[in-house]
């Protein structure tokens, strides 16, 4: 083991950060059943320990001067063939430091929550094993010092996502959702793999230092674009951006802590991390950044419209996540990497909070997820309700909650860099966000209860509500604490990696903030009027607006389109290939040759008539034949 740049020696422990959850994952996998309830506790402690370790190490990092904030730990040579090598090398810099804190911190809380949430599940131990394994892979992803190891983590979290979405595999639709998630993301992953191959073929290595630190003229602009886009394709898959977003809403089939951890706080943000990490390549290309921006913008708006039409509480959140991730990509596309990272962190808090809150609601309502059957829950389960409201306000962008700072900054940069259209559309996205989250909150927690379950809902146990409270505190404080603008703490912290925040002229920060807040507030007000006042027959309105709401609810029929355009023709093609081409064509040819020989043999038998005179004739034929042949030699 070999460490670079460690002053105090605390950094030597970096490898323990991912390894502790891994070890416990293995333990839980094999003896989880015997541990019983302890399995959850052990798993939570493991992640907690990781968090503590991370904090200590990051503190150590913070104590150093800016330029020395880098720690590389070479564990061992993993793949070493010829002059190519890819090692298991961990890299702790400010970017990965941010990520591991989020992962272990939020992860820990979700683990704790899950102790209560998963109570009584027959595969309790296995659940925590998978969850810990996920944490391991996620940490590996962000701590990797090369694209190869990053890819390992990348695929590993996909695996865990698969396992956890399909955790209740007895229901076929859960299993299908799991497979869909894995396969869809793998499409992006494959593009990313090709990207890695392209990197290798240009740089001969996958090490971050060599690839990202190479001088600008090492590769052509076109090559940089190709690499960047291929990498971004991976990000699109993992972060559920258009057009590979279809898996995330279905992924809500998994247990709610999974949705919170994987499909909100951490895994889906890996794409953002990847883009930020690979920023030098993207900047070299330029075109690639524009693509990132546009994809982000389209996704943000598209998903927001979908979220507006969902009746399933978790699906609203899922589309919301997609939309929010779009915002992050918008930021990155404008080179506003700190903004992206800031939103990533903030989003981790408030979206995890809301998912856990949704889980708590389901817990209290016998797994009910239909918003139409809720209402007035804030009275039955106040902690869940109020923490949820905090999360919702954060998402809507109400000052001074985390979401406000995140979204506001991004719109500000758009405005200041002269991207007026982006600014306007982004603001529209913000409006839609406030609208759908308002709708969710008012439908679920306010108004009158619309079902027996809602009327008899009960508050969850403290093991679940305490994490809610902590996360809510995070959602409130993160914005203020890590805030904001060019001088913001996080921005300054990340500067060695992300470079300075872009500058420009435009409307003043204050003006923009006022506009944003006003829009958010009015959207919430509208939502409250429609969904909670009881004075509007919103279902009637929806019926009158058909088929628009139905289309939005189905995600604008993208799934159908994919099914018609790709899946069905694909299966038909495979069926043709296997049942016609292979068995009738290729194998038919083979059997045809065999059959031909047999038929030849069968008909050849007829030469052997049994007539001795025929035999003599054959003999004579041969004799004359030989003579004729020799005759030609004369």
């Amino acid at each position, binding site marked *: 083991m070999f460490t670079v740049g460690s002053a105090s020696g605390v950094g030597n422990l970096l490898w323990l950060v991912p390894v502790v959850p891994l070890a416990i994952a293995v333990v839980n996998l094999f003896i989880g059943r015997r541990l019983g309830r302890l399995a959850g506790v052990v798993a939570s402690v493991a992640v907690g320990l990781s968090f503590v370790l991370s904090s200590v190490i990051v503190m150590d990092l913070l104590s150093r001067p800016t330029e020395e904030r880098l720690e590389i730990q070479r564990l061992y040579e993993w793949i070493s063939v010829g002059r190519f090598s890819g090692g298991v090398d961990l890299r702790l810099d400010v970017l990965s430091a941010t990520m591991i804190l989020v992962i272990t911190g939020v992860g820990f809380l979700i683990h704790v929550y899950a102790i209560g949430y998963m109570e009584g599940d027959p595969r309790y131990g296995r659940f925590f094993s998978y969850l810990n394994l996920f944490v391991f892979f996620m940490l590996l992803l962000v701590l990797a010092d090369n694209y190869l190891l990053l890819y390992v983590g990348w695929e590993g979290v996909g695996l865990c996502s698969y396992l956890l979405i399909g955790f209740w595999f007895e229901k076929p639709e859960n299993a299908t959702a799991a497979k869909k998630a894995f396969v869809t993301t793998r499409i992006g992953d494959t593009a990313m793999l090709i990207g890695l191959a392209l990197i290798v073929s240009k740089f001969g290595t996958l090490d971050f230092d060599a690839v990202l630190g190479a001088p600008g003229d090492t590769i052509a602009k076109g090559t940089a674009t190709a690499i960047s886009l291929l990498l971004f394709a991976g990000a699109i898959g993992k972060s559920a951006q258009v057009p590979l977003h279809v898996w995330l809403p279905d992924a809500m089939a998994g247990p709610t802590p999974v949705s919170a951890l994987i499909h909100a706080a951490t895994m889906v943000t890996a794409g953002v991390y990847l883009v930020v990490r690979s920023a030098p390549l993207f900047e070299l290309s330029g075109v690639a950044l524009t693509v990132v921006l546009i994809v982000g913008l389209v996704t943000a708006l598209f998903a927001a419209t979908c979220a507006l039409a969902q009746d399933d509480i978790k699906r609203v959140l899922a589309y919301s996540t997609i939309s929010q991730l779009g915002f992050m990509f918008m930021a990155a596309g404008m080179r506003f990497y700190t903004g992206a990272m800031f939103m990533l962190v903030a989003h981790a808090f408030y979206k995890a909070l809301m998912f856990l809150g949704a889980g708590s609601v389901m817990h209290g309502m016998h797994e009910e997820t239909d918003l139409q059957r809720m209402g007035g829950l804030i009275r039955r389960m106040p902690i869940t309700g109020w923490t949820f409201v905090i999360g919702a306000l954060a998402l809507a962008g109400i000052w001074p909650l985390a979401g406000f700072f995140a979204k506001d900054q991004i719109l500000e940069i758009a405005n200041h860099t002269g991207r007026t259209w982006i600014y306007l559309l982004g603001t529209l996205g913000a409006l839609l966000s406030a609208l759908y989250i308002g709708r969710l909150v008012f439908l679920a927690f306010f108004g009158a209860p619309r079902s027996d379950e809602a009327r008899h809902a009960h508050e969850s146990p403290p093991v679940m509500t305490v994490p809610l409270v902590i996360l809510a505190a995070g959602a409130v404080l993160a914005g203020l604490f890590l805030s904001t603008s060019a001088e913001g703490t996080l921005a300054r912290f990340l500067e060695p990696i992300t470079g300075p925040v872009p500058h420009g002229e435009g409307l003043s920060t204050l003006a923009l903030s006022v506009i944003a807040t006003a829009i958010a507030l009015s959207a919430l007000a509208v939502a409250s009027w429609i969904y909670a006042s009881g004075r509007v027959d919103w279902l009637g309105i929806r019926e009158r607006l058909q088929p628009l709401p139905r289309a939005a609810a189905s995600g604008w029929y993208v799934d159908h389109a994919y099914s018609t355009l790709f899946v069905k023709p694909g299966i038909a093609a495979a069926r043709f290939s296997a049942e016609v081409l292979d068995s009738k064509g290729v194998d038919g040819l083979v059997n045809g040759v065999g059959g031909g020989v047999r038929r030849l043999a069968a008909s050849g038998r007829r030469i052997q*008539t*049994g*007539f001795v*005179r*025929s035999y003599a*004739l054959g003999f*004579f*034929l041969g*004799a*004359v034949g030989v*003579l*004729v042949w020799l*005759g030609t030699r*004369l």
Partner: protein
Amino acid sequence: MPLDNVVFWVFAPISVASAIGMLLMRNAVHAALFLVVNFFCLAVFYLILDAPFLFAVQIIVYAGAIMVLFLFVIMLLGVDRGDDLRERLFAQRPLALALGAGFVIEIVLAVRAGIGFATKAPAGFDAVNDPGNTQAIAKVLFRDYFFPFEATSILLIIAAMAAMVLGQRKTRAVTQAELEAMETTTP
């Protein structure tokens, strides 16, 4: 025209005609008789080819012994009623005739290329046949070809045995299994 030439041109057509006659006769006895005629013609050729010993042997052994044996068997088996000359085998006749023609042509060509139609037999065979054909053959036979001559004795023993073995009248009945086997192999 020298005598041998005359003899050749007289007997050659007869020999060919008799051979064809054998080929076409329905009755086996007639065919055999044609064959005898043919053998006589050949004997005459042996004579003009300075092989009087073989002339004698041809008449005694072939025309005499062998053909008599044939006739004897024909009579014995009572198959002299005449054959059915219809051909049932597909293309047997045309093919056979065509191939036969080809065979003859080949031989004519080879002979022309090999010895030529003008080449006459060299003179001086009398020296070879000194003091007489029979004695000369005896000399060759019992000196150079002593061993083959001995070897023929084995052939004769085998022939005798064959007659003995195959001529035995003790035939056993056909077993059911055999009959079945025959049927299965017959298409």
